[in-house]
């Protein structure tokens, strides 16, 4: 051949997610071809795998193991949704069968590219390679024989595309062109209006489209309608529906996926024998009145429908009967079958109908799946999936979902067009919300993605401890949508007391807290009185209905739980009484309306300490008090007697007197936080933050606004005279203003001198980042000098002890506090966005797990 003729360039279409099988004799140039057209990581060669398992790429005895490795790697890539190219001879049917099988297992298309080059070319190339120079000619001949025999049957073997390159020139000039899958419409961002099952209800469809703002099939704002299928059968005017939908699809105003009814109608129109049941007879009859060209168009339309679509950058998947995540964007008979019919458990119900597998309970995907197929009385989101079939043809409603707004729009059926065989299912076909918490959501080593601090790691042993507590002791997870983060203390004080030398030294002092926030660029902080009781989170619903509708529980109207999610009160009746009092306070303060909610999540402290920690008090704190109280009188008397005898007791007596004083001060310190209660008499709840309400996390609402809401609740409760709520004292401090800082410090001194635990200093803005954009501690505690005896022991104020205690490291505690804070915010954000329970629980569980990380418990 001369150079005058320009080479013809073959283009080889390859689907972007597929298993490409190169087929050719040894020496046919497969590896060279693969290198030229695909990324190195996309290509897995059998020679390379042979080398991996036995150090010799040409050792044929290692083939079995080598192909195991090859299939394993290819499987992992396909499962992850990556184009994969297999570079092996694949001239034998058996080798190819395994690869086709692998492609099917991962629901991707197998594609064959055949290099059918002359024997001479192959032999010449092998001769040029030192490791293959000795290869007998017969091997090439055998490969070519096998190949020739295979060529015609490749499609039958299951390859969806077969490209055969027959000459060196053709092989060298061919271009591989990647094609998108037909179901991949991720580039379309809508906005969309997704319409549920129609079943020939043409009039309702027109009403719904009008309601959605369409004018004769076109939306003035350029929205796109998406039909989930089951346009036909049972209803009065399937042709009318088809005409409308087909027109909108054709003009680019709509997308449509097939339902099982279209599938069956398609088979009928193709001439297959089908039973005319489930309303097909009506459709056939209606179509018989239509012109032949229309029926023809319907046939073509149905033939062209793609089983499901992935839309809006992968955030939205639309199909008829629901689709597990692993099938999204995949192409196989199985995927299509799933998309059209859904999955069944193999069991049958009392009507003899197959029981649908509750696939949505398992669904953990990021994409929202919008589907129809099973008529339900009400649409509900379950794990980011929603069924839009509200049984229009059975006299229910026709429903559409606006995307990305996630708003539901529906119109009532004009009449019962068709009697259902069995009553509409009471719950969504995907399963039941609330119970689909799966161990895999929480167990083992986990990484939780948070919006405010990126990925947060949970170690396996911490998750194991959390699992034990969450399972054995916690409140129903539906009623534990949040756990409070731990809080770091202020940096350790190095300075002498401001209150005079007699006061000794401080371990914690407000000066460091103010200085730290000033350094972080936080101008205004709020100092809030720290109540010494037990942390309590309270979920209070407006009534039992609100609790049922939002949290799916039957009976309780909320929950009161500890920082590890355990019920605060053993007796549910006491919990309900607390909730009743809180509810009245919220009502009287007008907060339901103001916040537009029927539930509130509150963070606070329940007093007294002795209420919840009686065991700890008795066995540890009071025990120390009792022991010290009983030992010193005798010891001091003995020392005094010895001294009176003239024995030199040195500093021993003085030191024991000091220790006795410290021990007495310790007893005083814990006693301040104990009092006797009877039922709820004497029990106080001091709320300090409103965490969330319906549709909204309040975690970033500035603390002055927060306290304004809470003050109103407290005032309402005081007016009602229940004595439950307690106000949180506070003072605002400007961290750059010396006078203000001094006022804050004095306030703390006064508070703690009167027996207070101390205070918490928080950025007024609640949610804050520093100059470098890093998340700032949401609060630091500054605990009082006397209170700290309970933490560090009666004698910690002695200068030698203080010196040692100052050597405490806060780094881990601060990091832990931030991680837990970010997880808490994440839980609230997920709760507010009405994300699935497992998503909220994942973050809550992670907080609990982190609480079991090793960190100095005295911080």
């Amino acid at each position, binding site marked *: 051949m001369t150079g005058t003729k320009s080479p013809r360039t073959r283009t080889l279409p390859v689907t972007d997610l597929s298993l490409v099988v190169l087929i050719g004799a040894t020496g046919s140039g497969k590896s060279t071809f693969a290198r030229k057209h695909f990324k190195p990581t996309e290509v897995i060669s059998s020679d390379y795998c042979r080398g991996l398992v036995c150090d010799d790429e040409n050792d044929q005895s290692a083939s079995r193991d080598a192909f195991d490795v090859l299939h394993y790697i290819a499987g992992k890539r396909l499962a992850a949704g990556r184009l994969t190219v297999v570079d092996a001879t694949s001239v034998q049917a058996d080798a190819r069968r395994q690869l086709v099988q692998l492609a099917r297992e991962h629901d991707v298309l197998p594609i064959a590219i055949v290099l059918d080059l002359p024997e001479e070319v192959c032999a010449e190339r092998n001769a040029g390679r030192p490791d293959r120079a000795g290869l007998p000619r017969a091997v090439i001949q055998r490969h070519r024989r096998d190949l020739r025999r295979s060529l015609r049957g490749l499609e039958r073997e299951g390859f*969806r595309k077969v490209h055969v390159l027959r000459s060196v020139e053709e092989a060298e000039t061919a271009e591989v062109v990647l094609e998108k899958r*037909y179901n991949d419409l991720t580039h379309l961002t809508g906005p969309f209006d997704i319409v549920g099952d129609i079943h020939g209800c043409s009039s309702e469809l027109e009403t719904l489209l009008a309601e959605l703002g369409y004018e004769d099939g076109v939306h003035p704002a350029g929205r796109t309608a998406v039909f989930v299928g089951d346009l036909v059968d049972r209803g009065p005017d399937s042709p009318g529906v088809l005409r409308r939908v087909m027109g909108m699809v054709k003009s680019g105003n709509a997308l449509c996926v097939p339902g*099982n009814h279209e*599938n*069956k109608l398609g*088979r009928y129109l193709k001439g297959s024998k089908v039973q005319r049941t489930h309303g097909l007879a009506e459709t056939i009859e209606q179509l018989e009145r239509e012109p032949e060209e229309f029926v023809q168009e319907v046939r073509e339309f149905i*033939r*062209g429908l*793609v089983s499901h679509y992935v839309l809006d950058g992968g955030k939205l998947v639309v199909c008829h009967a629901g689709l597990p995540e692993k099938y999204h964007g995949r192409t196989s*008979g*199985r995927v*299509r*079958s799933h998309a*059209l019919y859904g999955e*069944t458990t193999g*069991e049958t119900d009392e*009507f003899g*109908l*197959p029981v*649908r597998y509750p696939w949505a309970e398992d669904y953990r995907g990021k994409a929202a799946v919008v589907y129809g197929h099973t008529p339900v009385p009400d649409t509900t989101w379950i794990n980011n999936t929603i069924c839009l079939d509200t049984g229009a043809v*059975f006299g229910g409603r026709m429903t559409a979902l606006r995307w990305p707004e996630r708003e539901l729009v529906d119109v009532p059926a004009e009449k019962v067009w068709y009697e*259902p065989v*069995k009553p509409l299912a009471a719950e969504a076909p995907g399963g039941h919300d609330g*119970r689909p918490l*799966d161990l895999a959501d929480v167990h083992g080593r986990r990484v939780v993605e948070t919006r405010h601090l990126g990925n947060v790691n949970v170690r396996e042993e911490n998750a194991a401890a959390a*699992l*034990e507590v969450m*399972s*054995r002791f916690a409140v129903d997870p539906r009623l534990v949508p949040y756990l409070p983060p731990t809080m770091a203390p202020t940096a350790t004080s190095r300075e002498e007391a401001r209150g005079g030398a007699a006061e000794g030294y401080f371990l914690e002092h407000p000066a460091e807290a103010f200085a730290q926030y000033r350094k972080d660029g936080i101008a205004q902080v709020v100092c809030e009185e720290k109540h010494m009781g037990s942390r309590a989170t309270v979920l209070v619903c407006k009534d039992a209905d609100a609790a049922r509708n939002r949290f799916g529980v039957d009976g309780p109207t909320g929950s009161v739980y*500890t920082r*590890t999610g355990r019920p605060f009160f053993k007796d549910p009746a006491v919990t309900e009484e607390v909730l009743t009092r809180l509810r009245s306070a919220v009502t009287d303060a007008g907060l339901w309306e103001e916040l537009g909610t029927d539930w509130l999540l509150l963070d606070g402290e329940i007093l007294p300490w002795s209420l919840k920690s009686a065991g*700890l*008090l008795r*066995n*540890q704190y*009071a025990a120390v008090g*009792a*022991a010290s109280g*009983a030992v010193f009188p*005798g010891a001091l008397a*003995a*020392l005094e007697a*010895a001294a009176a*005898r003239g*024995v030199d*007791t*040195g500093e021993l007596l003085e030191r*024991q007197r000091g*220790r006795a004083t410290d021990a007495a001060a*310790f*007893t005083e310190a814990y*006693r301040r936080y104990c009092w006797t209660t009877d039922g709820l008499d004497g029990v106080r709840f001091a709320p300090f933050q409103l965490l969330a309400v319906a549709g909204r996390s309040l975690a970033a609402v500035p603390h002055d606004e927060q306290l304004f809401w809470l003050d109103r609740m407290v005032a309402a409760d005081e007016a009602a005279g229940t004595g439950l709520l307690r106000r949180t004292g506070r003072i605002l401090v400007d961290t750059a203003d010396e006078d203000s800082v001094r006022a804050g410090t004095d306030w703390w001194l006064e508070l703690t001198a009167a027996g207070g635990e101390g205070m918490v200093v928080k950025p007024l803005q609640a949610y804050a980042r520093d100059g470098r954009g890093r998340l700032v501690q949401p609060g630091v505690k500054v605990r009082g000098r006397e209170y700290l005896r309970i933490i*560090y*022991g009666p*004698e*910690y104020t002695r200068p030698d002890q203080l010196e040692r205690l100052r050597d405490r490291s806060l780094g881990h505690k601060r990091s832990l506090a931030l991680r837990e804070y970010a997880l808490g915010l994440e839980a609230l954000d997920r709760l507010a966005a009405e994300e699935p329970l497992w998503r909220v629980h994942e973050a809550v569980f992670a907080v*609990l797990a982190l609480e079991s990380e*090793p*960190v100095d*418990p005295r911080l």
Partner: protein
Amino acid sequence: MFLTISTTGSPERPATDLGYLLHKHPGKTQAFSTSHGNAHVFYPEASVQRCTAALLLEVDPVALVRHGRGKGRGGAPDAALAQYVNDRPYAASSLLAVALGGVFRTALKGQCTARPELAEQARPLRIEVPVLPARGGAELVRRLFGPLGWDLVQAEAVPLDEQFPEWGDSRYVRLVLEGELRLADALRQLYVLLPVLDDAKHYWIAPDEVDKLLRAGDGWLAAHPEHGLITSRYLARHKRLTQDAIERLELVRLAEADGSEVEELDNAVDENRDTEERPVPLAVQRREAILAALRVAGAQRVLDLGCGQGQLLQALLKDPAYSEIVGMDVSVRALQIAARRLRLERMGERQSSRLKLLQGSLAYTDKRLAGYDAAVLSEVIEHLDPERLPALEYAVFGSARPRTVLVTTPNVEYNVRWETLPAGHVRHGDHRFEWTREEFRAWAGEVARRHGYGVRYVPVGDDDPEVGPPTQMAVFTQHDTDTTDTPTDTTGTTTDTPGTTTAAADTDTPKEGEAA
């Protein structure tokens, strides 16, 4: 921590001989350093008639906490000892015993070089320990010191806090001993019995504890009626405690976060009862009933959900009919004990391949549990709050769906037959409920109906005509399932056959290409 030793005397046998006996001069205050602080010896009185020696140990609690670091995963060997707030500086515990042993070493040995005859003589002694921690209370103190030759053994409980009388007494007693004893004997008794009464708070871990006990107990311990209790408390606990502290630190921290005691959360393994109530035969009967029901069901692949320390697993392993045995529990500690009990690490490959231990929880669905022949929930449901039973029900009957499910639970009606059980009490501290036969059947019947199981009830143990058996068992068997796996059109009466669907789908798929 503090104690005094007094004696009386006469010009012939002056009380001040105590100074010789103790090797400590009555006119001085002497200090000795010990590993946990300084010990001081001084004499508040020292006359011919009366002489009192006082031992005062100044324990530094911060040093105590930091001393413990480096053992296990960064903690002292005991949860309470890890606290700076600690009774050790005030109470006469094992630390005081250690100090006693060091400071009065020669006296303890009964040696007195200057006046050898003194050490051999008994003399009137009065020993006072103002704060003695006593697990077992004043009663045990009397039982321990009573047989040891004292004329007076006085033990008065110290109240916890006089401002809160409802809290009751503390675990401390004020101890006074009076009698004619050799000083060395008295000191040796204290050396052994202080830590024994304190219990759980051993602060030494040395390999020669047995020798020390034998030496200090020479002459009195062997004949002591509480000999068993003394030795087991002295020796047995410290090993386990150090081990446990390593295993359960995560739970300790969660308890601390909640202001509760560790035991409130970490109670899955009952140290005292080995999870089986007395009389033990009931546990055996229960196991036999379960094994019999499993045999009838023809189960080979079996789940033991809530396997605890693995008693049932052990029995299942012995029967080769069970080809796959899975033990699951929520408590990591219980699983560790089960693994130890079953000698999992030393088991042969063939045996160990039959057994798997998993941490898991029935409050969550769990894919690992699907597809088994049978599941056993033996004494499990009563450890769950009733509100959380629906989750368990769904995880077992809705999600895992084994063909057979065995559930055993106490029959509360039978409790009146337990002589040791006070009226109205549950059999185990962690039981959230105990059901009557009727209550159990109501629950089991509903569960069976909701999930397509049949259920029958089997009494376990002596079936009392009036109150029924001590344990009740429900045997759930899944109804035969229809094997039609047709894709469904839920409102229709029949559906497309699977053959046509797949065929249709298969042939249709390529057309996605053509049409689009």
